[in-house]
């Protein structure tokens, strides 16, 4: 029972990072009908950007990443650097690899975003090398006891951040003019234009936000998995699966999908660790066989 509870909380934490990425996918898909297939590289590079920011700020004092240096405002700096840095790169992605191909038939935007990601990854490899860096958790490696189960602080932080991000997203979309305008762009770009909404800018904004979420996810999960430039692929694939299973067109569905996927994965882990991925992805295929637009996604209707 304790094991199950512990697994559930770990699952929700990992699911939180999937949810962040899934939310980003939903955002760009509803506004531009495209996705960043290189989101994995954005997660990895985001983690390293955050780390580098910490390194740069602490190097005069300590000359390296040490537990002592990472305190107070430093974790916030890391999170900010990861999110803002990836946001900027996201704008470049939109301009260079998405906008020229969006709306064209075929899958050129899939390939162009993958191409952008490969270049980003190569740049990352040149800067940081291929090794895995152990990342100390900002609030220490403390473990909290909850109902007999031990939970890592960092796991709680990931889950909390995901929930906060989802809530902020919800609030922005419902209560601010920018959010309402974003929803209008997603629903009907031509009519949004008639309202005077600069549609292009909002589409670029969707990619900035989605990339920032990927960076955020990377810097948060790094203390759990360690940071490497190959860490992102698996997380992004699960994030993509979450968004697809939840329904790309439904942001809440995407967040739910992420948590669900994380939980499932963690439970299967209790039973047979090596079957984890197989069962998860088989499950994705089966869900799509039954519900081709995901569990909570809107059905696409073509007008004849």
């Amino acid at each position, binding site marked *: 029972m304790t094991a199950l509870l512990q697994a559930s909380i770990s699952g929700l934490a990992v699911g939180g990072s999937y949810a962040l990425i899934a939310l980003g996918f939903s955002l760009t898909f509803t506004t531009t009908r495209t996705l960043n297939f290189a989101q994995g590289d954005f997660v990895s590079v985001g983690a390293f950007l955050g780390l580098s920011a910490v390194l740069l700020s602490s190097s005069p004092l300590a000359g390296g990443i040490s537990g002592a240096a990472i305190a107070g405002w430093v974790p916030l700096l890391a999170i900010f650097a990861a999110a803002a840095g990836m946001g900027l790169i996201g704008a470049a992605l939109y301009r260079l690899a998405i906008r020229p*191909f969006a709306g064209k038939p*075929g899958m050129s935007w899939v*390939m162009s975003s993958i*191409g952008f990601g490969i*270049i980003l990854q190569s740049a990352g*490899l040149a800067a940081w090398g291929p090794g895995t860096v152990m990342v100390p958790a900002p609030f220490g490696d403390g473990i909290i006891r909850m109902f007999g189960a031990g939970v890592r602080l960092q796991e709680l932080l990931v889950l909390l951040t995901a929930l906060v991000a989802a809530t902020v997203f919800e609030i922005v979309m419902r209560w601010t003019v920018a959010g309402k305008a974003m929803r209008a762009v997603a629903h009907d770009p031509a009519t949004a234009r008639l309202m005077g909404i600069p549609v292009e800018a909002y589409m670029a904004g969707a990619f900035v936000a989605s990339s920032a979420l990927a960076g955020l996810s990377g810097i948060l999960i790094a203390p759990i998995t360690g940071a490497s430039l190959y860490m992102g692929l698996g997380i992004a*694939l699960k994030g993509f699966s979450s968004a697809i299973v939840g329904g790309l067109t439904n942001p809440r569905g995407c967040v739910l999908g992420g948590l669900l996927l994380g939980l499932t994965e963690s439970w299967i882990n209790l039973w047979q660790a090596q079957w984890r991925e197989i069962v998860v992805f088989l499950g994705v295929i*089966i869900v799509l066989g039954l519900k*081709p*637009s995901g569990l909570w996604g809107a059905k696409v209707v073509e007008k004849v």
Partner: protein
Amino acid sequence: MTWISRPAVATVAFGLLMAVLAAQLGNDYQLTIAFTICVYYLCAAGTNILVGYAGQKSLGQAGFFAAGAYCAAVLSSRFGLSPWLALALAPLVAGAFGALIALPSLRAKGPYLAMVTLAFGLVVEKLVTEWSDVFGGPQGLYGIAPLSFDGTAFSNLHWVWFAIALCVIVQILLGNLVRGDFGRALLSLQADEIAAASVGVDVHRYKVLAFVIAAMTCGLAGALVAQQNQYINSDFISLNLSIFILLLVLFGGAGSLYAPLFGASALVLIDAQLAQWPALQHFAYGALLLLTLYVMPNGVAGVLTGAWRRGLSARPAQPPTQARHGQHIRGNLPACPGLDGARAPGNVLAVQQVSKAFGGVRSAQDISFCLQPGHIHALIGPNGAGKSTMINMLTGVIDPDSGDIAFAGTPIAGAAPHAICRLGVARTFQNLRLFGGLSVVDNVMLGRHPRLPRGIWAQLLALPAARHAEADARQWVRELLDFTGLSAVADVPAGQLAYGLQRRVELARSLATAPMLLLLDEPAAGLNPQETRELGNLLVRIAGHGITILMVEHHMEMVMGISDHVIVLDHGVKIAEGRPADVQCNPCVIAAYLGAGSQAA
């Protein structure tokens, strides 16, 4: 050379040339590169059918590669099966996986489809990694029996020769397939599934076949790799392989028969050159990918055909895209070998109390009407009256909520669009749904699809029966183009024609299905007065051949001029029907059209 096509001869000759060149290669490293090119050619050849022709996204081709590789490996290393037999079984097993994965892919679209294939590739990757009892995991399977001839195992040169032979066979077979009806049907899927179904293409069947073909060639390639290396492990199978296979096709030029050749040879050679700088290699992939998409969206094949065309025509030859009115329409509607008689007396179509609601909007409420053989019926009404909904229900695009529809006595409510087309109901669309990239002839040839033999083997092997059927259909279509006045533009891509001509191409395409009933959704929309008059004349002549017509139309002069019978809908309700003159004077109709305040002046 009557039984072998010219492309086949050329392919064999090219293969022989390559085999001779391979014999000149100095060392094993070069032979390995030649072999690798062949392997990737095979992967790309089938994937090109799936991605370039059928237009389906697949990010899981590595899964099929693995199916073939491990099939050959397990069968020969664990069960001691002959390597030749193992090699023959590998594509079949991979093909079965293709059919399996096609099932959830049938309804999924866009990113959802990409996810299905991606997840499939990942499942296979994890399976061969984790299930080490069977697949050896990262340690891999050793001792896979290589191919041998007369008791001697293949040398490196033998492997290259054998691989070239396989490539030649695959190229010829796939060429046969895509040059005929099968290829057109796949292209129609890519362009527009709804239009494809409207000309009788069984969308599901062709999607499954495309997946099976893609799986089979990738499986064959996998088996070759396993046997040549005599070893396979899970490192071979990765998402990167799936992406690389896609890149081969896109770089070569998806949708061109030569894409796999260009893609495989160019990328393998570039790869070999860059191998000395691993860091750069990775970066080069990304750059190459972006560059390809920017400067050659149609790949190497696109660049070459572009140059070829420019070389052919020093002066800019403008295709005759403007309508030349009237002068070419001649002859009669060609007799149809496809449908046997069955022009039964009585109603062609009987609609009884059909209803349909979308959300709260009732687009059809208890509508009933009958269509008489050889008559021109018009379905009119203000915008939003439910006319297009009715056409869509009659053709199976939308299922009615209740009511019966009988075509020549057969109930068709809720049947699949392609099945309804095969029964003899053809249609055109309000917003033209032509296959814009295909020539006018090919568009109309697609209309022959339901009347052509469906045997895939005959087409694959280019048997005489298939070639005769194709030639006959082409001749028939030429006559139909004469009848519709389209002969002058027969070879122009339909998307480049003037609008009026495009409308006529769509009409010709629907006529090619040899319908008993023709449903036209706003055939005169966007036509100028001259074109509209010509259309009216053409419709009268078509009806003269015994084909029943039901048209939704707003152009009242034409409706009133040529219709035998007019049905008026308003807000989903039939408010009047009868002879044109009666309907014109009906006060309900006038109110519906001009507004309640209008006087019947």
